[in-house]
């Protein structure tokens, strides 16, 4: 389908959105027509289809209780202990529970479309204003026009939330398109951990996944952002996760990008404040005929800012992938430290993986470094493991899981860790 202006307006109206949001959508749709697609380095996406999909929104049944969840979702959740949980089924907010603690401390944790209605001013302040701009390119504009799900998290000053907020985006309808927007705002001196999982239970999807997450970390705020993406093939996936960090803020990313769809993933941290710190860990498994492009960038504006990028990818079958790692130090960001490590493990002759480390430095008084490698499983590692009686298959399994462990071990929810391990197991087999 092609979405017309009137469709966007009537969707917005049906959702009871404030007029600023309706106008933002309408303006974005208008801009989308004239804007170009993004240009991910070394992957030509001009022929990719990002714009057609069966329908904008599907309506799914809610989950009356957690017992009703499909096994794929249930396994992710500690049903008894997980107090703050949001489950979105395709485009429908299907289950939410929040603790009294969140309410007492003034924390907002709700689905995005409710947030637009009920926390209009807060959302307006941060929605595509700080981290991602509507008119960056065609996909950001389309996203803004078509947002049909996602989550809003707001943590007030000085509030520390210990237990991770857990979000599951379940895709069990092949017609569904996901224009999810996640907005996490942590005010000064606050701390929060957010973990999201995308899980498809359909064989093959027909829609679009155009996902944007914005993370705003104010002075001295600490945010841990975990994500595991396991979207079905058939989607054309554009996923953009971006953070803006104020003074002394810290954001830790742990991203397990396991989609079976062609995917353009962008993860940028803007270290705006002095002393801010971003730690980005990404692991990826590509298989089949997948085409993948992963750009991870840490951009240093603040003095003494610290950026670490770790990316490990495993490529099998005829999967093709580009790993762009960018450490960008702006003029004036003295004493900044930009480090990155990109490694790709190739499991077949036909797979392709390019590690493309880039350092862009416009300041003298900085430290920076990168390491990159592309290769096969080290035969000497296999020899060592096998010399202890471990079979070749098991030895390879250990090496691969070890290679992808940096993200698995960072995910703060056991069920999500376990699921990522299982997905890796399934994908590399």
């Amino acid at each position: 389908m092609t979405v017309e202006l009137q469709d966007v307006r009537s969707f917005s109206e049906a959702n009871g959105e404030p007029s600023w949001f309706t106008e933002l959508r309408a303006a974005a749709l208008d801009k989308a027509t004239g804007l170009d697609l993004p240009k991910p380095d070394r992957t030509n996406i001009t022929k990719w289809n990002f714009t057609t999909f069966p329908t904008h929104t599907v309506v799914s049944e809610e989950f009356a209780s957690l017992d009703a969840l499909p096994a794929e979702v249930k396994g992710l959740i500690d049903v008894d202990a997980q107090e703050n949980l949001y489950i979105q089924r395709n485009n429908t907010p299907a289950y939410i529970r929040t603790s009294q603690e969140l309410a007492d401390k003034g924390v907002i944790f709700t689905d995005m479309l409710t947030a637009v209605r009920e926390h209009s001013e807060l959302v307006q302040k941060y929605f595509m204003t700080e981290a991602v701009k509507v008119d960056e390119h065609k996909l950001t504009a389309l996203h803004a026009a078509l947002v049909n799900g996602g989550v809003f998290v707001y943590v007030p000053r000085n509030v520390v939330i210990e237990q991770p907020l857990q979000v599951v985006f379940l895709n069990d309808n092949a017609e569904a398109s996901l224009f999810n927007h996640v907005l996490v705002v942590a005010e000064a001196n606050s701390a929060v951990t957010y973990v999201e999982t995308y899980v498809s239970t359909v064989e093959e999807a027909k829609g679009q996944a155009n996902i944007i997450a914005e993370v705003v970390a104010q002075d001295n705020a600490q945010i841990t952002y975990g994500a595991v993406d396991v979207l079905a093939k058939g989607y054309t996936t554009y996923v953009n996760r971006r953070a803006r960090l104020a003074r002394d803020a810290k954001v830790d990313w742990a991203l397990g990008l396991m989609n079976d769809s062609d995917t353009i993933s962008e993860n940028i941290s803007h270290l705006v404040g002095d002393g801010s710190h971003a730690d980005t860990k990404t692991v990826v498994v590509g298989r089949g005929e997948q085409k993948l492009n992963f750009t991870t960038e840490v951009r240093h504006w603040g003095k003494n800012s610290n950026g670490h990028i770790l990316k490990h990818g495993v490529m099998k079958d005829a999967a093709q992938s580009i790993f762009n790692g960018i450490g960008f130090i702006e003029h004036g960001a003295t004493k900044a430290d930009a480090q990155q490590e990109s490694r790709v493990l190739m499991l077949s002759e036909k797979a392709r993986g390019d590690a493309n480390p880039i350092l862009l430095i416009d300041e003298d008084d900085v430290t920076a470094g990168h390491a990159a490698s592309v290769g096969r499983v080290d035969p000497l590692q296999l020899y060592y493991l096998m010399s202890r009686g471990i079979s070749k298959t098991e030895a390879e399994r250990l090496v691969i899981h070890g290679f992808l462990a940096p993200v698995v071990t960072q995910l703060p929810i056991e069920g999500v860790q376990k699921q990522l391990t299982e997905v890796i197991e399934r994908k590399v087999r």
Partner: protein
Amino acid sequence: MSTLVIKDLHVAIDGKEILKGVNLTINTNEIHAIMGPNGTGKSTLASAIMGHPKYEVTSGTVELDGEDVLEMEVDERAQAGLFLAMQYPSEIAGVTNADFLRSAINARREEGDEISLMKFIRELDKNMEFLEMDEDMAQRYLNEGFSGGEKKRNEILQLMMIKPTFAILDEIDSGLDIDALKVVSKGINAMRGEGFGCLMITHYQRLLNYITPDHVHVMMQGRVVKSGGAELAHRLEAEGYDWIKKELGIEEEAEEQQA
């Protein structure tokens, strides 16, 4: 009793012959030491027995209780009872020492008969304490960032956990300070006995002060050129290798070949 028999073993690396007919028989309840100058093929012998991918056996046989070892994959050799403590163990990021050891132990057991976690931890704790290893070594990634001494201790820890029939120790003493050498020797001595045979490869007689070998062999130019008891090691320590060269008429130039 088990027996490892090496007969007329010839081994090449990158087409160059390093071992030129090694003969050696090791029984359980025996500790053998192989000594010799640098580059005479000692480590090549160890690697060839275990099945290192870079070493090509061009002729000869290795048999373990009559079974053809050279026909086996590396993991099958280990399962058959062989163990090699390596001179340069690989580092494997993301795989904890404990997980690795449990995989190694379970690889020897039937599916459904895996070692219980409690029993495994008890055994691991006991052996790590015996080898004076920090507790956190169990949860550290396999050999990653280990010091030279920690790696050697870790090889001996694996030896004690896996309990092979025959262990080959490739320069387990090199780079160890005296305290670490004592600990490593303590581990090896603990294994000594019925049902365990050992082949130690070393440059230095020093190791043999802590582990008394039953047999000492000297390797030169890719062959075992002299065998004897513990007293042979003492003579080598005192007099070096020249007297053997003279006795056997070995030319100096052979020294230059590298293994």
